[in-house]
């Protein structure tokens, strides 16, 4: 009798120390019945992908407020693909300018949730779009 749970890695790549948003989202996903692995601040793309492999997650959620998303989000998505984890859903949040969103989507970040997004919306998106 298989009973699976959606596992989500919530990580903060880069150098900014603002993790309040990430923690609120992590809690909302927890309350939606998901298993959330929170890795903390100052993660490199390599660290995030390594943790994603070991934890065998279905989703990687990235939060970044420093402006380096075009580099760091894209690095994570690329590295996941390189390691054969293209079935992992990658989503992002934080301070992301509107015009960057289409570019991020092209690079494999499936959805971007900016300030003001309801947690329910994120939960719904993840539940409906998990790839495995």
């Amino acid at each position: 009798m298989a009973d699976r749970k959606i596992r989500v890695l919530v990580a903060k790549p880069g150098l900014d120390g603002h993790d309040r948003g990430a923690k609120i989202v992590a809690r909302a996903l927890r309350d939606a019945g998901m298993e959330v692995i929170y890795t903390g601040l100052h993660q490199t793309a390599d660290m995030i992908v390594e943790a994603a492999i070991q934890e065998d997650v279905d989703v990687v959620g990235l939060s970044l407020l420093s402006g380096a998303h075009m580099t760091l989000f894209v690095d994570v998505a690329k590295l996941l693909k390189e390691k054969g984890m293209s079935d992992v859903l990658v989503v992002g949040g934080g301070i992301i300018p509107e015009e960057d969103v289409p570019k991020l989507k092209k690079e494999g970040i499936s959805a971007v949730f900016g300030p003001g997004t309801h947690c329910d919306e994120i939960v719904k998106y993840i539940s409906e779009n998990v790839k495995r």
Partner: protein
Amino acid sequence: MKDLTEKVLKGDPRSIARLITLAENNDPVATDAMKDIHSHTGSAHVIGITGVMGSGKSTLISELTQLYRKQGKTVGIIAIDPTSPFSGGALLGDRVRMQQLAMDDGVFIRSMGTRGMLGGLTSAVYDVVEILDACGKDVVIVETVGVGQAEVDIIKIADTTLVVVVPGLGDSIQTLKAGVMEIADIYVVNKADRQGVEQTVAEVESLVDITCSGKERKIPVLSTVAKQSKGIDKLLKEINAHKTYIEKTKQIEKQRRMRYEAELVEIIRKRLMNFIFDESTFKEKIEDLLDKISSKKLDPYTASEEILSKILK
């Protein structure tokens, strides 16, 4: 499926991670793999670390693991945090304290939710210990949830159990109570830079004096400040000394036997529960019985006998 087992035995991280997920989800594929894996286990030293929440278990594990790595040993870590009884979700945060280990391919960390188990562990932990053992890790460290007084299941699985206490959590009566304070092979007084550490150490030592009087081995009491890497090398020496001791006295064989007993009981419990509650034929029957119990036509004991008589033939 032989393929997955082979890759796990070769130490492929993705396959190890996948098999752990399958085992956690009670997937039949995992059952087959676990059957093949058992004969490859037994060489890892399994260390259990338990203690109240916030006592510094994760940080201690991070420090210990770095020392093991300096000695060339590979380490598997199972970090358990509680699953919500309300939502079924969990926030697994032990990795935050283990950042130093993040890029070391000699270390495999897996975070797990308790998924309904009491006792400080999770039902699949036996499988995960076997998987990490079989894939070649020299040491497997199991971190329990932050415990209260009575979560003592860790001794069923660990060769060496560490109980972590911190200063300021109560007087000597607390150390005399039954439960967690009875299960240590080594006591660790962490956060030893805090006020009141002398008193805590003295109370634990006096507990040890009482419990170990006349015994061959006296349980060591060690002070550490994990965050500043203080006292960790001494702790590692004591852990290794305990391993040597249980090997010499053959106590390890008894303990392993106890682990397999606990594992066997857990597998039977799980499969029996699935059989009773998930098979479609039983489900209808149970609904019917519940109706009768609710309307007082039947009592719960008689109802249970009706179900059990179908299994116990």
